[in-house]
C-alpha cells in the first residue's frame, strides 16, 4: 500500500484501537496513539451516521495543509489508515485502499484455523507466572506513600 500510493504510513487497526499491522515511515509517528484515536473517531462517526439516517460511513478523509489521512473500514472489525502528503494522489489512495481492503477483508473473514504449534508457542501457566511477576515489579505500591488498603 505504501509503495503503491507513495503514502507515509499505512496501518491496519482493530475497532478496539489496537494496531494489527503497519508499514512505512513509522519512526516519525506515534502509531499506538494514532490507532486508539482513529478507532474513537470512527466510532463517533458511526453515531453521526446513525443520527443522519445512515448505518455507517465507510470512509473518513481528513485533509490538512501538508498531511492527510484516509481511513476506510475493512470487514466488520478493522480499519485501514493511510497517511499521505501529496493530495493529488487521493484518487490513487482511494483506489488502492479499496483493493487492499477487499483482499484483507476476505482473509480476515476466513475461518480461523489454529496453527499446530500455536498453543505450544505460549505455555499459559508459565506465561501467567512471568507476567504476574512483571506486574508485581512494575506496578509496585510504595507502602509509605500509599495508605490504601484492600477491603
Amino acid at each position: 500500500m505504501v509503495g503503491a500510493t507513495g503514502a507515509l504510513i499505512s496501518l491496519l487497526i482493530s475497532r478496539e484501537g489496537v494496531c494489527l499491522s503497519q508499514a512505512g515511515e513509522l519512526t516519525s509517528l506515534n502509531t499506538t496513539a494514532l490507532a486508539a484515536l482513529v478507532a474513537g473517531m470512527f466510532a463517533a462517526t458511526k453515531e453521526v451516521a446513525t443520527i443522519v439516517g445512515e448505518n455507517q460511513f465507510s470512509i473518513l478523509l481528513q485533509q490538512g495543509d501538508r498531511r492527510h489521512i484516509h481511513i476506510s473500514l475493512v470487514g466488520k472489525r478493522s480499519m485501514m489508515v493511510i497517511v499521505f502528503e501529496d493530495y493529488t494522489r487521493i484518487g490513487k489512495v482511494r483506489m488502492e485502499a479499496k483493493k487492499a481492503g477487499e483482499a484483507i477483508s476476505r482473509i480476515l473473514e476466513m475461518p480461523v484455523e489454529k496453527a499446530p504449534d500455536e498453543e505450544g508457542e505460549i505455555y499459559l501457566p508459565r506465561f501467567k507466572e512471568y507476567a504476574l511477576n512483571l506486574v508485581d515489579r512494575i506496578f509496585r505500591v510504595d507502602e509509605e506513600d500509599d495508605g490504601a488498603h484492600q477491603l
Partner: protein
Amino acid sequence: MAHISSENQQIVFKLVYFGPGMSGKTTNLHWIHAQLAEKYRGELLVLDTEKERTLFFDFFPVSLGRVENYAIKFHLYTIPGQIHYEASRRLILEGADGVAFIADSRMGHLEKNIQSYRMMIDNMIDLRIPVDDFPVVLQYNKRDLEPLIELGSIERELGLSPGIPAIEAVASEGRGVMQTLRLLSMEVIRKFQL
C-alpha cells in the same frame, strides 16, 4: 479480550477506568503515568474540555516487557463520566479485559455511583461481555472528603458478590492508585485464556 498478534509478537490487554463524572478517573491515569519509569510508559493523551471534563477518552499505553517472546502491553483508557457520552463509553468498553470502577465516596454521590455502575453493566451486556466472570476492581476514591459514604455501600446497593476487590483511595495524592492498577492487572492476567 486480550489482543494477541503473532505478527508483531505482542499481547495487548485493555484496562478501562469507568465511573461517574468527576470521580477521579483521569486523576488516576495521571498519577500512574507520573509514577511509571519512562521505559514502561507511552505518551498520555488527554482529550478534555476547558472545564477539565473528559470529552472523548484519556489513554496511554504501558509496555511491561517480554514474556515467552511476546511483548506484554496494557492500554489504559478512561471513559467520559457524564451521562450523555453514551457512544464514547460503549466504544471504550468494547474489547476491554478489565475495569477499574472509580467511585466518588462523597456523601450524596451514592446514587451517581450506582447509576454509573448499572450503565456499565448494561453496556457490557450489549457488547456481550460476560459480566459475572469479568475482572472488576472497585475504588472508593476521595476518601479525604468528608462526609463519606460507608465502605461496602455500593456493593450492597447493587447486590454485588462480596468477593469483588475494593480499595480506598485519594487519587489526587496517589493513595490507592497503583494498588488498584496492580490488583486489576493481576486479575486480568489470571483470567487470560488463549
